[in-house]
């Protein structure tokens, strides 16, 4: 029971909660950005294949449809 | 500017007189709300801050009905285009519409405030002049902001939803000052003076939003 030795000031759980809210918001934002990034990636891959097709370079399986 | 304002205002009032829509609906809504408050609060008479709150909430919600309808005829019957084709200052449309809305609010309150006194108010209102002054200042603010919000929401598909959602928070400062200012007038035990800061703050609000509306209203008219 070593945890009992650590002294926490009064109401420290509220302070921790407030700072966790801040952290949580940031993480949610990161998640949204991650979603956007994957969408950009998918679109770029698609466009890249399109460019290859137009350039006459074969070997690609063609576009995999678009959104 | 004055000619065009007078023309639009005359047209507006004539339309409302020909087929009364806003004023009767607003007045009826106000009185119904008083009845609803009677049952919801389970009181037969109220006074002081409670009375002031009930009065202002009712008047404000009633005003929402008028605001939502303010530009409907112009939108649906081509009134905006007809106005824009004329060689007149576009601000005159704002001034005329705000004046019309002010007239509707005053007309409604001529019915609703006495009805409130009769139906719900315990003490008889002490300083009637001060009450009228506060009502007039608040009405001016509601008319200015209401016209702006009405024009803002008219092009959207969710017009009727957006009007109260935007207008109510925008009018909270008016509500705070009007309710605080009216409280001593509706309290038992004689005439209390209204603290000057309430009417002054409403006047400041009216001034600021009058200028904002003057600056931005033109942009709501272009197609």
């Amino acid at each position, binding site marked *: 029971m070593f945890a009992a030795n650590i002294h926490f*000031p*009064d*109401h*420290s759980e*509220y*302070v921790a*909660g*407030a*700072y966790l*809210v*801040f952290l949580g*918001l940031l993480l949610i*934002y990161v998640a949204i*950005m991650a979603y*956007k990034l994957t969408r*950009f990636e998918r*679109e*770029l891959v698609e*466009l890249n294949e*399109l*460019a290859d097709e*137009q350039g006459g370079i074969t070997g690609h399986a063609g576009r995999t449809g*678009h*959104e | 500017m004055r000619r065009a304002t007078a023309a639009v205002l005359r047209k507006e009032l004539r339309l409302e007189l020909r087929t009364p829509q806003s004023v009767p609906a607003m007045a009826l809504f106000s009185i119904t709300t008083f009845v609803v408050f009677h049952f919801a609060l389970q009181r037969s008479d109220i006074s002081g801050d409670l009375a002031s709150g009930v009065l202002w909430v009712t008047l404000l919600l009633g005003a929402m009905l008028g605001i939502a309808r303010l530009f409907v005829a112009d939108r649906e019957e081509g009134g905006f285009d007809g106005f824009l084709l004329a060689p007149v200052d576009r601000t005159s449309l704002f001034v005329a519409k705000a004046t019309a809305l002010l007239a509707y609010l005053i007309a409604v309150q001529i019915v609703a405030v006495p009805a409130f006194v009769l139906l719900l108010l315990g003490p008889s209102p002490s300083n009637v002049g001060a009450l009228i002054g506060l009502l007039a200042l608040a009405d001016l603010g509601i008319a200015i902001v209401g016209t*702006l919000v009405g024009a*803002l*929401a008219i*092009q*959207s*598909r*969710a017009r009727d*939803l*957006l009007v109260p*959602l*935007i207008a109510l*928070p*925008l009018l*909270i*400062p008016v509500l*705070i*000052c009007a309710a*605080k200012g009216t409280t001593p007038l509706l309290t038992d035990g004689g005439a209390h003076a209204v603290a000057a*800061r*309430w009417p002054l*703050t409403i006047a*400041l*609000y009216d001034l*600021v*939003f009058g200028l*904002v*509306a003057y*600056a*931005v209203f033109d*942009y*709501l008219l*272009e*197609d």
Partner: protein
Amino acid sequence: MYGKRLRALSIATAISIVTAFSLAFFYAPEDADQGFVQKIFYLHVPMAIVALCGFVFGGICAIAHLRTGDRRWDIRSYVAIHMALILGIGVLLTGSIWARAAWGHWWVWDEPTLVSFLIIFLLYACYQPLRFSIEDPEKQARYASVFAITCGAFVPLNFIAVRLAQAYTHPRVLGSTGNLPGPMRLTFLVSLLAMTLLYVTLWKYEMTAKNVHAQLRSLRRKLAPDEALTPGRRSAAPSLPSR
């Protein structure tokens, strides 16, 4: 190009946030009245100030949009308000937690700053629905700008009114920085700087993302000009005019 200097900005933000929080916990003395709970102050108040400034900044961008007719200003305004709204959620949550810790209630009406903030948050919550319900993109931009300007002017007025309503019932305890002791004030100012940097960084991220999106769209049009433009989901978010 919005991505310029974004890396430097991100690093500065990270450093300043770590510094601010370290100062808050290890340097600033404990408050005599509130004790440890007062540490929320260094998070909540800078966040509120930055969010409010973000709303006003959105209004200023909207003025520039109406004056110049340049759609990029509308996007700046949109992103500014969008980010301020996200911070606003944080402000309301941390404010509520603070109220619970300090006064034992999850919400207090005596704190004018918090109450004003709630009103402003409720108002700006209509920004996106308003945008969403106007179909013509040009009209949407114009109407959103009018909304942003009107509400930008509303922010200070609302504060005056709400503070007036409470000034005579309760003395001000929190939020005024004038009477803070030195170390507390320093910590507060560093936190404010950190929060401002965070806001600017997020704003730039979002603008860069919008720019990437627009560039992708114009690339797609160049590569497949005859392909019918996918109309995409209708959204409240404006997009940069693609070249």
